[in-house]
């Protein structure tokens, strides 16, 4: 393997470990928004679509790049908007007793 690929492999491995750490701390109530949020992040594949679009030089590649662009953009834009809609709802109302929000870890509760 080339040095570049080995470096990429190291980045990949570390990113996986970071992912485990960041995510295992999220309370169950936020799992749906979290899934949706992670879903919009893999829309980053739009970057790959842009790169192949720039390198396309024949009708097949044009078509593949175009569909990839449409798909990727839908993933990114839709994903973020829908996640925002979900999270927006959590922010409303619980104005006064903000402290009890973290009930997951050990609020003594009656």
């Amino acid at each position, binding site marked *: 393997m080339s040095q570049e690929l080995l470096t990429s492999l190291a980045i990949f491995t570390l990113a*996986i470990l970071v992912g485990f750490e960041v995510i295992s701390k999220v309370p169950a109530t936020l799992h749906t928004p979290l899934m949706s949020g992670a879903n919009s992040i893999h829309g980053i594949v739009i970057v*790959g679509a842009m790169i192949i679009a720039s390198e396309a030089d024949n009708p097949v590649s044009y078509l593949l*790049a175009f569909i990839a662009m449409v798909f990727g953009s839908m993933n990114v834009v839709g994903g973020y908007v829908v996640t*925002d809609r979900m999270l927006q709802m959590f922010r409303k109302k619980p104005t006064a007793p903000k402290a009890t929000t973290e009930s997951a870890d050990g609020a003594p509760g009656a």
Partner: protein
Amino acid sequence: MSPEWIYTFVYIAWLAGASCFVLGLHRMNSPATGRSGNQLSAAGMVIAVVATFVYLVTREGGLSGTALAIIFVGFLIGGGAGLYTARSVKMTAMPQLVSLFNAVGGGAAALVAIDDFIRLNSGAPLDTTIFVVLGALIGSVTFTGSLIAGGKLQGLIAGKPIYVPGGQLVTIALAVVAVLGTATLILGAAGTLNLDSTVTLGLLGLVVLSGLIFGITMVLPIGGADMPVVISLLNSFTGTAAAMAGFVLGNPVLIISGALVGASGAILTKLMADAMNRSVLNIMVGGFGGGDEAAGAVAAGGASVREIGPDDVAIQLAYAQSVIIVPGYGLAVAQAQHAVRELAELLEARGVDVKYAIHPVAGRMPGHMNVLLAEANVPYPQLKEMEEINPEFDRCDVALVIGANDVTNPAARRPGSPVSGMPILDVDHAKSIVVIKRSMGRGYAGIDNELYGDPKTGMLFADAKDGLAALTAAVKAL
């Protein structure tokens, strides 16, 4: 403008974008910072996309007019469709929309890989071939798999397990074809096999095709109740496919974000499977409900249930000290989240202590019920998770079960039932139980709920919304 100089900045911008994703996900830890976390993640996406654009325009050769058109028109069409659906979707239909977005994301990753393969065909280095083929394969599986999962949730495809003729043999055969095709391509790239470029292209086509069909046959036999786990798993797959594309393009932001999502999806999948006390493998292999084991297991309940009218329930609720509401999918389909909040507020005004018991898999995704209730402005502190609320059922006067079924079935405590071992809400410990349900129909597990035969249980047969409206009116009239 030296391209090298610019590339350094582009690379740093990519890393900044990836950091935003990590920090954004971290901020989704709590409801208070969740929204800003998502916005941070979106900002990271903008940074990464703009940086890529700058990189493509400034590098040698620049962007051709056609490429520009592809990028902009593609973005407008896809982005527009995403924006429109995301804005107009109902909260109850959100899981299938996420599944659809996951499908197109996987599709995009597969297309990027396929295009790379065509360009690199003949003469691609060995290590790149591995990632290209894996990206194409994983992307294809998530594309069709997510479409089927979304279709099941939307009701376009029957939610119950569908057994393909030949069943798991077909799925296994497809997996074998895909693996063999991948192996041959890798050997070809390694120079061990001397393959013609048309042959390799055909092989890739075969791998992609078997991936597409595999996605279908993998998800079809899985019951609707398990779809959240499946979507989460496929979400993780898409992340991995994006990371594979990153390896091929040597792009750090793709690799980091793909790996992040791959890890998060895997964790979520496990958490969701744990909540149902089943292993991920068990879910992927067999559907809930169908099959022999479910058939003769428990046919206890059914016999005699006690029907109860809204007026009687209203009296019970209004004069109770503590009421626990157990919302389920039935509440979600009936769009009754506002109706339940109205009833709860009315009861609280009369001094009743009202709480909501949220089973981890209530609704269609973990946390889905919280989203629906939050939409209806139910105060967050009233939502209690299973471990927290279960001891309180012993002290609770009335448990009001609205459209929830399997998660309340006491049969889960004994072996020998399809729901055995699934953690349940201890609704049967309450002094009195009221179940609002449209009919005696069964839940996703396809078995009778013993709770309904309990002498303490009264059944109010109604659509969740109509039933709650009738209750609210009756309580007001007291």
